[in-house]
């Protein structure tokens, strides 16, 4: 089936089998391998990407469902000049990754939430919901929570400028 995916602002005209999940098409057809598959059943969240700004598990969505839609992956986080996204810097600063396999999923969950509402970091319950949505086996999550808070503070200070 022929579909058009806009991934990180770039248009991809693809011919994909209808059964192929979005994560596989991103990884293999678009060669964007930053999106990782950790469970292929929507539990771990490693494959989270944004579709039209909303976080989805790319293992549970078919690529054909995204025809004509806009997908954002971890490769699209940095600015075009390579300047890292505040979340990327914050993750590094807080040691919020060790092996790095789950990291893209956490970044995308966080960027989706912060861009929709930067005040989310002011609400511990909503922050809990955010960090609880994905699995990490290395860090114990606290560094990830701190990183998201740190990036959110940066968002907020930019908003005030």
């Amino acid at each position, binding site marked *: 089936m022929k579909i058009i995916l806009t991934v990180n602002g770039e248009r991809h005209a693809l011919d994909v089998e209808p059964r192929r999940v979005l994560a596989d098409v991103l*990884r293999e057809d678009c060669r964007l391998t930053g999106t990782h598959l950790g469970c292929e059943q929507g539990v*771990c969240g490693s494959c989270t990407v944004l579709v039209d700004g909303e976080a989805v598990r790319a293992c549970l969505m078919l690529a054909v469902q995204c025809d004509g839609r806009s997908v954002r992956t971890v490769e699209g986080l940095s600015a075009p000049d390579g300047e890292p996204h505040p979340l990327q*810097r914050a993750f*590094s600063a807080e040691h919020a990754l*060790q092996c790095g396999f789950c*990291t893209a999923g956490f970044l995308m969950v966080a960027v989706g939430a912060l861009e929709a509402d930067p005040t989310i970091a002011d609400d511990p319950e909503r922050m809990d919901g955010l960090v609880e949505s994905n699995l990490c086996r290395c860090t114990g999550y606290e560094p990830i929570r701190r990183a998201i808070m740190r990036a959110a503070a940066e968002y907020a200070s930019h908003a005030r400028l």
Partner: protein
Amino acid sequence: MEQWTRREDRRLLTGHGRYVADLEVPGCLDAAFVRSGVAHGIVREVDCAAAREVPGVVGAWSAADLSGLPACAHAAARLRDLPPVPRTLLARLSSEEAVAGREWPALAKDRVRYAGEAVAVVVAADRYRAEDGAAEVTVRIDPLPAVVTPAQAADDSVTLFDGLSNTAFTGEAGEPIEETVWQEADAVVEARYRQQLLMPAPMECRTILAVPEEDGRLSVWSGHQMPYRLRRELAALLDLPVDRIRVVVPDTGGAFGSKSATFPEFVTVAYLALTLGRPVRWIEDRMESMTAATRGRGQDQRIRLAADADGRLLAYELRIDADVGAYPHLGVGLPMQTAWMATGPYTTPRVHATVRSVLTNTMVTYPYRGAGRPEATIALERSMDLLARRLGLDPAELRRRNLIPAGSFPYRTPTGRCYDSGDYATALDLALTTIGYDTWREEQGRRRADPDALPLGIGLSCYVERSGGEPGGLHDFAGLEAHEDGTITARCGAAPSGQSHETTFPALVARTLGVEEARVHLVEGDTDAQPDGLGSFASRSAQVDGAALHHACALLIGLARERAAELWRTPVEEVEWSDGTLRLARDGSSAMELAELVKGTGPLRVDDRFESGMGFPFGAHAAVVEVDPELGAVRVLRLVAVDDCGIALDPAVVRGQAFGSAVQGIGQALYEGIPYGDDGVPLLADGLLDYLLPTAAEIPPIEVKETRTPSPVTPLGAKGAGESGCIGTPAAIVNAVADALQPADPDLLQMPLTPDVVWRAARAQEHGAQEHGASKAEEAR
């Protein structure tokens, strides 16, 4: 680089990491395995004919299709039958007797011995088509009775290998203790503990990509901890010289001990790549991993602990029935780690530990973060709390009276270990003050007086563990090369899976040489680039490879001074090294940068083998929990982890490891476990939802602190870090729950302490002996 705390971060945070599944190899085939749905049975039929007709499928084979082949039927004529999984007798963790007659086939042919065992393989243009093919393979297996626990399997009423006992190995540490010791002791406690089977569950499952090269070599990429072992074992299996195989470990998504073997699937993939002359990869998916990846722990323990009236320990006896899984691999002798470490941090004069390793119809038991030491610590520390209660002593005070004093090292234990260094009491004191022990005891007293308050418990766990490896495997190889442009390449035999080597090792080298960090870069995890090595396991990278690099720095400085002395026609003692520059000692003249020396005198390279002693990291963990006896719910209010791993190369990295490790320890204590049906099939219908990995919702306030007692076993003084939480945390939490509930029968509190387990334990206390007997019978099932 200032934007990134670790060198790894730039690529891992921007989607440019390269894990095995990310590598693009033209023409690569994907393998999918057909797996047994029964735990134990006779294979009657595996028919792959229909699979071969599926579009995109390149081949499909059962074990029978790949055995008994005429020698010349293959393109690669040297290859004959599909080889079995290699035996591993590493580090006394298995024995010839254990493996004799108990071969682990790469694909099961006549008999399956665990649910998930592979019986056929399908390769296709992609994983979708490979799975299409796998779905068409006809498998008929006549079930046999399955034995899932050592208790069921030990009587040999059902045997896994005809004519052989299920007991594959027995061993002991220490001397048997005379009965009079127990009879004459003022206090003796006895208990039983179950160390449940756990899934290591790295976020990236197992991976292998095997590429036959045009020159006849085989390149293998794998997320792996021991690339040199993988190379050696594959070479032996495939009848290739070792130098005809290159193993590369690219970015690896966690391992926790579980990625160091040559697994059945690896054997099959490498064999097919060579046989077909095409690249083949296997990217394990989570459901496969949950049924067919190795498990950790798996021990049934019985203990006796004796003390005099003052609480001085007299004797400790630990009997282990270990769950080996279906085939004797490292899991056979792994429980000896528990036996050797049974003494723990105490001066107990008599300690005896016995091991009986029993085959069961479950996937193979294998190292998982902690690997034998959590089992030792949990048994001993739970027993210490039982004893404290029996004697009416404060658990902290009982420990304090028995900890090996700081001035007693090296300390030889009755179970054959020689602890290198330690200051156990200081770690305990720091844990107690950090958690506010006395304040929590007061709060506990207040709640006990208040019938409406939820019970509160405080649990302690003092541990000592072992790092670096066992004799014969305490070395590694490292080298340094200085280049004309002033940069320095560091190489070592380690293979990281998230431990920040790329950052910490260059920093160590730069610090030791006195040069800028940016000038040093690390090469590891590639058997071509660094020809000799061992890998990363047993918490050894900092202790052994770090020390090996530290040693290489001294060699490099020595060689540079010799070269400069020659150049300046002066005795080498006259040449000094400081901050990457060579000078004449007497007046500091003739200064020459290292890069200039290389330009003038040629490549400057040092390589060596470095051997460490065994390190014994230690610490003390403390937990405060609140228990709701009506709901069986446990809420961890506070956890303090004090760990001592000697000299830390990078304290922030070590803390990150300690924190993550503590969370895995919480997982063992409260959540993780693999439920099996009576037929031996794991009950995992909902995949990862059925295995409770801790999420952020389960993380209590955790405080990680450290003491620093340098190890004398290497000049660097580092011991292993990273397994501390898995070792120290579980008993602290279980002891806290027991302290809150004061159950009539502490044996009911077996991990994981799910609401069901806690509720039953609390209820047994309320409803008296009859109920408690019934629950105990249920527990035993």
